């Protein structure tokens, strides 16, 4: 439970470099300590679930990693290079994409427009440079290719307004957008919180598709069965720190809940479990 465990993530189990790493992150809001020297490590090609009780600091941790909040102290590393983000666009520019729980798509706009929102592509030549004309057909084609690649087969018409889609399909558009632009890390913040059982299953399948493509994914979730279904490793956040990192195979849901609530203490040397493979 001390900050001495921050020296080298991965311990002796592996020499693989984390894709995204945080060391000794501290964030306070007035008297409230949201992050109290938290560590974090995401390894290549894995789905890392981040769980924790309300107030454990998991959303603050994710906000720091995605650039939505600036940590007071602590260091962050992307592929071994030290980074600091002042706003989400800076994290995004470095290949870290975030999918939010609140179905963050504009309902009246179509699928392709939503996928390219804020990152529109102009036509080549003077039409694009002088007249600022967007390459609508090109963006629709690329959006379609992205959908097909992720196995979202039934979304055929990229000019369809997002509001005509189900909740799961809207979240699929968000995930596809993240996958299209997130070159290094995709963060999914409670992606199924607003969805029903069947739609949640669609999103979970998307997460598995992302992993099959070798994309490292951070999944924040309250839903234990979902976490155990898709995660390679589970980061348990408690009282602003990393309480443990465990694999779904080695620990039961009951034990994870016990770690979350503090009923079960994990020795410091077990907290930084390296990559599984």
């Amino acid at each position, binding site marked *: 439970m001390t900050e001495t465990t921050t020296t080298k993530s991965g311990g002796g189990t592996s020499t693989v470099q984390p894709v995204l790493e945080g060391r000794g992150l501290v964030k306070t809001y007035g008297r409230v300590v949201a992050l109290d020297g938290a560590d974090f490590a995401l390894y290549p090609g894995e789905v890392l679930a981040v769980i924790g009780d309300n107030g454990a600091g998991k959303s603050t941790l994710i906000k720091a990693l995605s650039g939505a909040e600036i940590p007071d102290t602590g260091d962050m590393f992307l592929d071994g290079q030290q980074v600091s983000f002042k706003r*989400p666009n800076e994290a995004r520019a470095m290949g870290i994409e975030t999918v939010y729980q609140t179905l*963050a798509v*504009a309902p009246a706009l179509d699928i392709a427009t939503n996928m390219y*929102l*804020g990152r529109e592509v102009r036509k080549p030549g003077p039409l694009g440079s002088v007249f600022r004309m967007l390459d609508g057909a090109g963006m629709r084609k690329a959006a379609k290719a992205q959908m097909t690649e992720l*196995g979202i087969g*039934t979304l055929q018409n990229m000019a369809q307004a997002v509001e005509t889609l189900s909740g799961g399909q809207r979240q*699929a558009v968000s995930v596809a957008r993240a996958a299209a632009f997130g070159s290094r890390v995709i963060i999914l913040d409670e992606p199924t919180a607003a969805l029903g059982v069947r739609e949640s299953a669609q999103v979970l399948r998307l997460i598995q598709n992302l992993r099959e493509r070798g994309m490292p994914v951070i999944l924040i979730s309250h839903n234990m069965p979902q976490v155990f279904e898709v995660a390679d490793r589970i980061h348990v956040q408690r009282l602003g720190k990393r309480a443990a990192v465990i694999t779904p195979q080695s620990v039961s849901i009951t034990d994870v809940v016990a770690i979350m609530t503090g009923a079960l203490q994990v020795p410091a040397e077990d907290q930084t479990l390296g990559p599984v493979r």
Partner: protein
Amino acid sequence: MTDATATTAGYDAAEEFLDRQSPIQRLQGILHAYPWLSPAVVLVIALIIFSSITSLFAQPGNLGTITQQTAVTATLALGQTLIILTAGIDLSCGAVMVFSSMVMAKMAFDQGVAGLPALFLGIVVGGLAGLINGLLVTRVNLPPFIVTLGTLGIFTSLTLLYATGRTVRNRELADELKWLGKPVLLPGGFTITYGVLVMIALYLIFAYVLRYTAWGTHVYAVGDDPDAARLAGIQVNRVLLSVYATAGVIFGIAGWVLIGRVNAASPNSGIDANLDSITAVVIGGTSLFGGRGRVFGSLIGALIVGVVDNGLSVAGLDEAYKRLAIGTLIIVAVTADQWIRRARA
């Protein structure tokens, strides 16, 4: 369905959804995709009704007059459309227009500024007025209704104080300021003015900008769902500020069109112009909740108002029917918008 998609069996919800569409839902879908369609039908019906009431109505001369009468409101409605697309509203647009026209006229007449620089100054004043509205909306975080209700009073009184209650008359106006009143003869006996041409050019430009540029997409996104726009990396306040400033420039140009139309610059003109522009936008199918609508809908909306107005007077009917008809149309248009939005959400 290929084998590849068959494996992702969970994603067949879209097809079920499409199959469940009733004819009513299909109609809603069409109205949603083409929001100017129902106002276009209303315009055609109005044209047919007035043509059958009186043969004077459908004369080329009279139809040309309608476009001239509509030019000022239609230009204002274009700027208003931009603002309403962001889920805002501008009650000060008419006051900004009159203020700009007074600046143009007095700069040239009193200060001895040449016509074109005076015209330019007037349009800049319109842009600055829009910028002030935009700053109050984005930086002070006030609702657009309240901001522009306040600036409506401020700009109106500034105009009266600046003009010292005096109208700049036709023969006192610089030639450049009267250009837009000059007639353009079209084949078939239609007579429009350069003001009508300027108005149409502005509509074409902004139809293009909204449809084909990133800025246009961002205007729709900000009005549709500001949170989603922000999460997508759009700087929402910067878009809003640019919309209010651009609308201000359009209102300034409307001031130029106004001078051409009334052949004078009067501080007392354009009293109801703000409400007329909102009426045109709403009848034109643009949603007051933002994110939905097309500029050409507003042009059709302005034409509907112009046709009803002109038709009643040509037919010799009581002008009171105009307010009845337009008022009813506003209620019907907003009800239809609610219906379309509810069904599609």
